[in-house]
Structures are given as structure tokens and as C-alpha cells.
């Protein structure tokens, strides 16, 4: 059955826009995967350091921002200190904004409770280099303040002083964290990924090379539930639910109609042969 593409576009647009304007409040069940990430952060001692790497482009911002915010909310609420950085150039500006916004909401002080190192090119060299000395890879922070002038960073030499690395990514960067930081230096890694990337990392989770995966808007929504707050992740789930449902309905209708047409053609051909 031929259906004008514009009708499909209109159905998808309505399925996305309507729930954003009029939230449905669909129930979101927390999966074991998200709970594992939450509990790993709960087990970190207060004052320990989480390295949050913004390894994504600006294009995936609507999906990765809720993930990063959920992790940061949890860290700041538990007085876990955060060192931010970016291994993609576009992630640098995004991470800078998110980290400062969330820190301001939790009354955290720059240089003591959190710091932002900015971007370094060539992620392989950057990840390996930080295993030897983070100061060597980032002599200054994003705002050009020398590394040793920042009290939090003075305490951190290499991965040995980092409790957990969280890679907020929309691509293959967590693979490099596994290959170069986890395999070589034993650094524990958690990946906060766009939904489409989650399956790609399942073998690493199974093998214990990644401690947990937080996947897509749904992962963010589940994490928000565990934190007891509703934000962008939960709001987006209604829209995503209806969009998925509309696509599924279209696939079913398309198949039913195609099946009917095929049967009709077969009957016509059989009738033609018999006559």
C-alpha cells in the first residue's frame, strides 16, 4: 500500500508534539541495568572523585543532556566531587554548560567540589596519557587556570585517584575508555549512552569491562525516578512512547494491507489460470 510520506511525517510529528504539550504521565519501570548504575554511584564514598567525560556531538544533546544531568544530580547530592572533560570538541562547550548549571543548583564551589578540564584532541592519546598524569594532558582547565592552582585537581594525579569514569557518549568513545583506561589501568567505567548504542556495549557489560550502562532517554527517566525527581527524561518518555507506538501501528497496518493485496493477487492469478 502506497502511503504519502507526508502523512507518515504528520503522524510522527503529532505523536511527538502532543505528549510534550499535554503530558500523559505513562508509568516508567526501573530496569536492573539502571538500578545497577545508581547503586554503583551510591557505593562511592562521599568526597570521592567521578570523572565525567562528555564524549558526544551537539546533535545528540536532547538525549545525552538528561543522562548527564541525572548522573551529576546524583553525584552532587551525595557530595561526590566531579572532574569534567570532553574528548569530542563539541562536547567541550556542552559539558561546560551542564556542569556549571548543575553545580549552581547544588551550591557547589568550582575548584573544590568540581572542575572542568575542557577538550583534548586525539582521544586515544588523551585517555592513555591520563593514566600516567592528568596534569600532563591538561596543564590548564577550560578557563586556562593552571592545573595546580585548582585545589581539587592538586589531589588528583592519575586514574588511581579517580573512583569512577562516566563516559556520556553517542558513539564509540566508551570502547576506547575500556581498551585504554580499563584494560591498561584498571579504571572502572560506566557508559551513559544514546539508546541506539546500548546493544553495542552489552558484551562489555557481560564481560565486566563496563560496570554499567545507562541507556537513552528511558535510562535518564528511570534514573530520575530513583533520584525522586522528574525532569527532561520523564517528560520525553511520553513522546518517545507514542512515537514508537505510531511506528509499530504503521508497520502492522502496512503488513496487513500488503498481505491482503498479495492474497488477492494470488486468487486473481489462480482464477486466470483455471479459466
Amino acid at each position, binding site marked *: 500500500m502506497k502511503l504519502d510520506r507526508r502523512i507518515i511525517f504528520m503522524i*510522527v510529528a503529532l505523536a511527538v508534539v502532543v505528549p510534550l504539550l499535554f503530558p500523559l504521565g505513562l*508509568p516508567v519501570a526501573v530496569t536492573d541495568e539502571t538500578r545497577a548504575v545508581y547503586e554503583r554511584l551510591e557505593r562511592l564514598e562521599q568526597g570521592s572523585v567521578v570523572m565525567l567525560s562528555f564524549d558526544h556531538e*551537539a546533535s545528540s544533546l536532547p538525549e545525552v543532556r538528561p543522562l548527564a544531568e541525572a548522573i551529576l544530580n546524583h553525584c552532587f547530592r551525595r557530595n561526590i566531587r566531579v572532574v569534567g572533560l570532553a574528548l569530542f570538541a563539541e562536547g567541550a562547550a556542552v559539558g561546560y554548560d551542564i556542569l556549571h548549571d548543575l553545580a549552581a543548583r547544588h551550591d557547589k564551589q568550582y575548584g573544590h567540589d568540581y572542575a572542568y578540564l575542557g577538550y583534548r584532541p586525539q582521544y586515544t592519546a588523551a585517555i592513555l596519557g591520563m593514566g600516567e598524569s592528568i596534569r600532563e594532558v591538561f596543564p590548564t582547565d577550560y578557563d586556562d587556570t593552571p592545573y595546580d592552582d585548582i585545589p581539587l585537581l592538586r589531589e588528583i594525579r592519575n586514574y588511581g585517584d579517580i573512583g569512577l569514569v562516566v563516559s556520556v557518549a553517542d558513539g564509540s568513545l566508551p570502547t576506547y575508555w575500556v581498551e585504554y583506561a580499563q584494560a591498561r589501568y584498571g579504571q572502572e567505567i560506566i557508559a551513559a549512552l544514546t539508546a541506539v548504542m546500548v546493544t553495542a556495549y552489552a558484551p562489555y557489560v557481560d564481560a565486566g569491562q563496563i560496570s554499567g550502562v545507562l541507556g537513552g532517554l528511558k535510562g535518564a527517566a528511570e534514573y530520575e525516578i530513583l533520584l525522586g525527581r522528574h525532569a527532561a527524561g520523564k517528560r520525553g518518555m511520553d513522546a518517545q512512547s507514542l512515537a514508537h507506538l505510531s511506528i509499530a501501528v504503521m508497520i502492522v497496518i*502496512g*503488513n496487513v494491507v500488503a498481505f491482503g493485496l498479495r492474497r488477492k493477487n494470488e486468487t486473481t492469478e489462480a482464477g486466470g489460470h483455471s479459466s
Partner: protein
Amino acid sequence: MLRKIPVMVCAVCGVFMAAQYFIVSGPVSQLYGTVLDWMQIIFVCALLVGILHVITRQIKNISRPGPERWYAMIALFGIALMVVLGFGWGISRGSPFLWVFDHVQAPMQTTVFSLLAFYVASAAYRGFRARHAESAVLVLAALIVLLGRVPVGEIISPYVPQTVSWVLNVPAVAAKRAILIGIGLGMTATAIKVIAGMERTYLGSGGR
């Protein structure tokens, strides 16, 4: 000679990077740190070459008649603007550079990316046809995963998300793991060939 020098450099670097993994000593670590610094320097040089290529390409497009010259002008203006804003006012909070990034570049990129949803919906409608048994399995799996990854799946039946979890964690992981092992073996074989000088395609036409 022009071909032998890069092959030798590559072989020495390859052997050193493999060996240093197993050697813990001051001089080796120092040399390793220097190699990492050089990797970043070379990457930045490649980045500069890329920027220069984009600029020269856009200048060429401007000189040609046609609608592309206007796009080229906008591209060049964008590059120049970000360079001026970045070097002129810095990239800190409240800077014009960050304002343009947050209010122009990020929304533009997310808009283009979000268009995928419409094309994916259209492609799914046209592509997911159960023409025979194998494609019927594919369509069924797609429908279950599509619904099971959102709260609607839980509302339909608690078995839907459970089935999704099984599909993603068993058959999908098995296939992915096989691919990863294949990639790993391929990468190891290629690395050995590069170090041994048998694989020279990275030299371009000079490698033949």
C-alpha cells in the same frame, strides 16, 4: 628510500608501543609519554590541514556560479565568525562564542538529527514487510523491541520488556560478540602486517 623510511618508522613505533605495555621503567615511561604527546601534535596538525582544506574548497565554490556559492559564503562566514569570537572574547561562560554555540550551532545540529525520526518512521513503514518466514521473524523482533523499550510495552504486557531484554542480551550480544572477536583478530593481523612492512596501503599510492 622514500617508501622505506616511513615503513621503518612505523615498525619501530609499533614494536615500541607493543613492548612498553610489558615494561615498567622510568625511561620507557618517559618515552611513552613523549609518543603520546606526539600523537596529539600530529592530530592537531591533521586538524589544521582539514580546516585549510574546507576553507580552500569553500573559496573555490564561491568562484563558481550557481546556488552553492551562497552556501559556501555562509560556511566561510561561520568559520570566520567563530574564530573572531573565540580569540576576541574567549570561550568562557557568557562569551559570545558560547552563546552562538548554544543558540545557533547546537539547535541546528539537533534539528537536523531529529529529522531522522521522520525518515526512520517512513523507512520502517516501507521496509518492514513480512514477505517470507525470515523477514517475518525480523518484523516481529523489531515490533517487540520498538514497543518494549518504552513504557507502552509494559502497559501492553510485562512479557514485552522481558522479551526485549532477552532479545538484546542473548541473540544480539552473541552476534555482536562474534563481530567484535572478528574485528579484534582482524586488527591484530593488520597491525602485525603493518609492523612487518607487509601492509603499506597507509602510504597511499607511494606504498604500491
